[in-house]
């Protein structure tokens, strides 16, 4: 794919005499495999153009990148997303960084693959609202798309399936694996400050238990969990889960978390400090959530304010946006790229 994002750990040769399992420290962990392996560069480029092209939306004003903005860590910085015509959507826009490693997508985990996920905002009436019956023809009418689809997937031009696959291929290059934490994990002691290192230890404490769900190296887990953020959103319980999973959501990754405020499925917590305070109080337990709605690992804990600040400092060390996609100067439709919406 021409980029170095899919780095394999190759430190064994350079490591000291004793190398255990190929890792310099125990903080280095293998990333899960990416579905389909390294994507085809031509598919990635097609996916990138589609990602930024408002032609995918019904009214030609909205692209994927309007909510997953390169200058906002592939989120949007809003409390909850804004859809078609500026209408408020119920949930906070998650970053796309490392979506490639997720077993399921969407806050309520209803999409089993990136390809399936793409279709949700693409066809959602409140989002891009594309017409599945007309999308392929619309793209095929643009000669550059027609050529690119044929080249990547073979004769036949565009199709909903091909659009999904191309955008998913592009998304699989949006990796974030080389934060200062990763360099510290690879043995660079100076990569984290004292405060950040203390924060890492607090992150791994059984007092806070952050690490139990935000697992190395992805800082998430393939799980639906309840932490009790007060909202009427049924989450997983309303998307094929059991009634007992009402208010459960997928565990979001903490990669680039310093750049993706506000937080939680409803964007109700403005800062990382607010998030840490929420957990210090016992998560939803402090907000009247039923006990069964809050995982038992989420419980009140006492840490000093300096420790909370260290924890936030550590979370901010998880930033790596070097895979930030280039914004195309023009897209095949000729429509304006990332133009501010009314």
């Amino acid at each position, binding site marked *: 794919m021409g980029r170095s994002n899919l780095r394999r750990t190759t430190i064994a040769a350079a490591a000291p*005499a004793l190398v255990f399992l190929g890792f310099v*420290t125990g*903080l280095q962990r293998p990333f899960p495999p990416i579905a389909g392996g390294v994507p085809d560069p031509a598919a990635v480029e097609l996916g990138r153009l589609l990602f930024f092209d408002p032609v995918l939306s019904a009214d030609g004003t909205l692209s994927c990148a309007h909510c997953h903005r390169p200058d906002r860590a592939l989120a949007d910085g809003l409390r909850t997303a804004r859809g078609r015509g500026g209408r408020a959507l119920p949930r906070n826009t998650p970053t796309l960084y490392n979506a490639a490693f997720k077993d399921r997508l969407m806050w309520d985990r209803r999409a089993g693959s990136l390809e399936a996920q793409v279709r949700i905002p693409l066809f959602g009436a409140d989002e891009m609202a594309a017409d599945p019956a007309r999308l392929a023809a619309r793209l095929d009418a643009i000669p550059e798309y027609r050529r690119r689809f044929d080249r990547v997937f073979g004769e036949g031009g565009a199709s909903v399936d091909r659009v999904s696959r191309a955008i998913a291929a592009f998304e699989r290059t949006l990796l974030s694996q080389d934060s200062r934490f990763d360099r510290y994990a690879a043995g660079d002691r100076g990569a984290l400050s004292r405060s950040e290192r203390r924060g890492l230890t607090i992150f*791994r404490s*059984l007092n806070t238990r952050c690490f139990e769900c935000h697992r190395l190296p992805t800082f998430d887990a393939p799980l639906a969990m309840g932490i009790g953020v007060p909202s009427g959103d049924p989450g997983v319980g309303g998307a094929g889960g059991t009634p007992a999973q009402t208010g459960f959501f997928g565990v979001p990754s903490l990669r680039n978390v310093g750049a993706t405020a506000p937080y939680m499925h409803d964007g109700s917590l403005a800062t990382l400090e607010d998030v840490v305070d929420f957990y210090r109080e016992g998560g939803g337990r402090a907000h009247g959530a039923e*006990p069964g709605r809050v995982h038992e690992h989420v419980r009140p804990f*006492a*840490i000093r304010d300096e420790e909370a600040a260290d924890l936030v400092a550590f979370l901010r060390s998880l930033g790596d946006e070097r895979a930030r996609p280039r914004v195309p100067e023009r897209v095949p439709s000729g429509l304006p790229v990332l133009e501010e919406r009314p």
Partner: protein
Amino acid sequence: MTRALIVLGLCLSFATAPSARADVIRVSSGDSIAEALENAPPGSIIEVEPGVYHEALTVDTPGITLRGIVRGNQRPVLDGRNRLNDGVIASGSPFTMSGFAVRHYKGNGVSAQGIDGVTFTDLEIDDTGLYGVYPVQSRNVVVTNCTVTRISDAGIYVGESENALVAGNEVHHNVAGIEIENTNDAEVRDNLAFANTAGILVFVLPGKVLKEARRNRVHRNWVVRNNHENFGDPVSIVGGLPPGIGILVMGADETTVERNRVKDNPSIGIGLIRLGEAEAARDPEQEPFAERNRIRGNYFSGNGLDPDPAIVAGYGGGGDFAWDGTGRDNCVDLPDSAATAGVPLRPCAIPGGARLEEPFGRGLASGSEPARVPPARRVAASAAATVDLDAVDAVVRIRAMRFEPKHLTIHVGESVAWTNEDAVVHTVTSGRGTVPADGPLASPFMMRGATYSHVFREPGRYEYLCLPHLDQKSMREATVTVLPPGPS
């Protein structure tokens, strides 16, 4: 698994053999262990002198051995003074820690996170928050000869891990003594679990990435008088357990529970149940039923005589064994005298399986079993150091199921040694009447010929008992009376 063990063996030989490459770093009282760890190259041995260290340690370097130097009753103490979060958090593979006392941390005693090849041995852990020993998401785990007390969740926990040995430990006054959770191939043997809310748990719980607990083996443990009130977080599953449970298998598959001595647990001796419906509904991907478990050849006595109301409500009363009637292909062999609660479970179709020989005939160092861990890792026969009987002030001989003398009077500062001359295993354990207590006398299991000694530094009357035999009058209510310094 064979290959994993060979790899583990190689790693351990790197980490523990005093080779030319292993740096040995000495830490003395007043120095910082954290500083030594910071600068230790991979494969280092850190030796720590007795003393009190107010530190929270992280070990991310591979191949570290953190070895407390034990001299008699003296050993290094990690003391969090209820201000620090965790004693040790380790991630480097492999990792070995021994010879420390760990106390007064807010979150946890010692934790291994994502390690392949971790050994915790000869640790004395007390009052360290939610857990004492917490290996998680790890492989090839060894926890031996540790004492873990006053823990508000599980004293020794092994979670989301593969291949573990938990042996020769003493766990008491915890909510759960030992908990094997969403873990495969753990062997839990020769442990002593008493005065916990529940002695030994083999669980599947919802919300875990590893969604099974299979092929765990719980055998030759003493699970006695687990009757502590539950002081855990009532919202948690362990914190909601009714008191008085010996061994509980919940939702796990292919567990073997055999040749344990299960005595005087007031609610249930051994229980076999599914993960509760409410909990299971929170994780529909987790298979909730306990299946293909075998419970056989255990020795029961005096269980279920004072059951918790929740047990009475659920099972109609207490007993030596209780099953909730769910899950396929389970079986149990019980002696004719056993009291059962709940739904009757079919016997295991093993010839003679119901009457294995009395457990504990050979003790910890039995060499007859195939080794599941490298030989150097095997549990030593009773960790008690050899004691020079001429050098102590008084000797109590344990023979013919008696303490001789049963009552002894000494002065402050004097030492007493107990020596076991019987063929059976004994302990010297503080306790009043038939109730073991968290007191100064806490011997390991003592094989024939083993000796245990204690120096009494405070005047008073110290009553003790033998845990395995506290039902025999001759093996309890023994005393040491310690007088103030007398005229010499």
